[in-house]
């Protein structure tokens, strides 16, 4: 670190007289030989002196005297809303507390008998071919449903990650206010997506979907970096994330995945003899 940078880092503490003897000597001796730092420090002092002219509007004593009562009222109002949410729970337990014991015992016995009959039927009834077919059909249906749900979740994950990436890539710290990024929100979403990524990766057992697994892993790395950014003004870290996304060609991968997805849909909807299908088969 250059002496000027080191000196400027100590300006704040120098003004408020928080430097130790060694640091104080360093600042004083550097300022005496460096005109740039001297004028910088003088300007900082003048600015802080102007800022000392600021006065806060002082609330009247009556305001402070009534502060606690106002707060207590507000807390009371909030408290009065709380029992409403608990009331159903209270009523439910009260219903059981006041019901006669014999009624509860009878109800429990009936439930147990019904449950026993149902379980017995499921286990000991002969399995007919129709029944087996129906079971197989329902298993296949649930597999298809699961697969559709998985595809939807994967698409949703990619879309949401893409939005975060685009927000970062299009952010220009020189022309835009960093708070436009709304980083806390982006970090919250990134964390959710990182959790989602671990679910999706577990779900991809199909070797045919290796490219999707690769994309999800790459996005997960970028999202983790976003989630760990220190602040909106951490421009160096933001730049690193951008470079990471660029070097992995993430946006290109997303486009390729979108294209594959759309051609799969086309595949399912168009007859096998069409030109588009021939092209894909090549």
């Amino acid at each position, binding site marked *: 670190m250059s002496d000027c940078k080191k000196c*400027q*880092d100590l*300006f*704040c*503490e120098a003004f*408020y007289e*928080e430097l130790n003897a060694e640091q104080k000597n360093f600042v004083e001796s550097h300022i005496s030989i460096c005109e740039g730092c001297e004028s910088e420090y003088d*300007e*900082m002092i*003048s*600015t*802080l*002196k*102007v*800022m*000392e*002219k*600021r*006065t*806060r*509007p002082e*609330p009247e004593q009556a305001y*402070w005297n009534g*502060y*606690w009562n*106002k*707060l*207590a009222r*507000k*807390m009371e109002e*909030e408290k009065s809303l709380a029992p409403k949410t608990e009331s159903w729970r209270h009523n439910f337990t009260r219903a059981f507390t006041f019901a006669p014991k014999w009624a509860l015992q009878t109800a429990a016995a009936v439930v147990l008998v019904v449950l026993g009959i149902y379980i017995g039927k499921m286990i000991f009834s002969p399995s007919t071919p129709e029944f087996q077919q129906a079971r197989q059909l329902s298993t296949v249906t649930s597999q298809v449903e699961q697969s559709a749900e998985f595809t939807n979740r994967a698409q949703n994950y990619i879309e949401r990650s893409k939005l975060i990436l685009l927000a970062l890539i299009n952010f220009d710290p020189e022309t835009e*206010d*960093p*708070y436009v990024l*709304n980083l806390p929100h982006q970090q919250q979403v990134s964390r959710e997506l990182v959790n989602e990524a671990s679910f999706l990766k577990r779900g991809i057992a199909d070797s045919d979907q290796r490219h999707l697994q690769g994309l999800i892993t790459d996005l997960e790395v970028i999202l983790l970096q976003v989630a760990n950014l*220190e*602040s*909106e*003004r951490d421009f160096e870290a933001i730049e690193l994330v951008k470079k990471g996304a660029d070097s992995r060609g993430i946006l290109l991968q997303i486009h390729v995945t979108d294209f594959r997805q759309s051609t799969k849909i086309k595949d399912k909807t168009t007859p096998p003899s069409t030109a588009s299908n021939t092209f894909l088969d090549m």
Partner: protein
Amino acid sequence: MVQDEQVLVDRISSGDSTAFQEFVERYKKKIYYIAYDITGDQDDAEDVSQEVFIKVFRSLKTFRRNAKISSWLYQISVNASIDLLRKKSSKPEKLMDDIERADIQENLPGSSTNTQNPERSAEDLIIQKHISEALQKVSPKERSVFVMRHYNELKIREIAEILKVSPGTVKALFYRATRKLRKELSFYLGNPGLEVSNE
């Protein structure tokens, strides 16, 4: 002082009904002023400070015993103030409310400042307005650091603890805030004749 704070927190946790009132009385001004310094609006400062105490009351049981309660309070206050500013970012005109209100009050017939020295009062009002405007031009995080150090006399280390950043980051934010303020207030700095006096 820290031990004293701890005793108060223990009393609140054990259900002592007067302890929380004592706690509020002790910190209300500090919290109100820090919220005012960041939001620049008296109504917002009142809302934020009350919200802070309600949050504290709710979560005092989860408070880490080895932490400093005033730092924790400041942390909640700064976050609540910045959150409020973010929510209000679509209505920047509200930030000048107090200055406008002060303007009206100062010019009311019979106002003491108005009758004693009208020229001085008008000059003060302009300076106050310029300073408030300049502060609002600084980003909320830079402003939080600046007001905590300059108006609330918190040390760099304490601010770093409150904002959960390194002391170096605090110094950098403070330095950046000062540079922006210098630019905004260059009128008072560049012309020695117009420089404000510290009477």
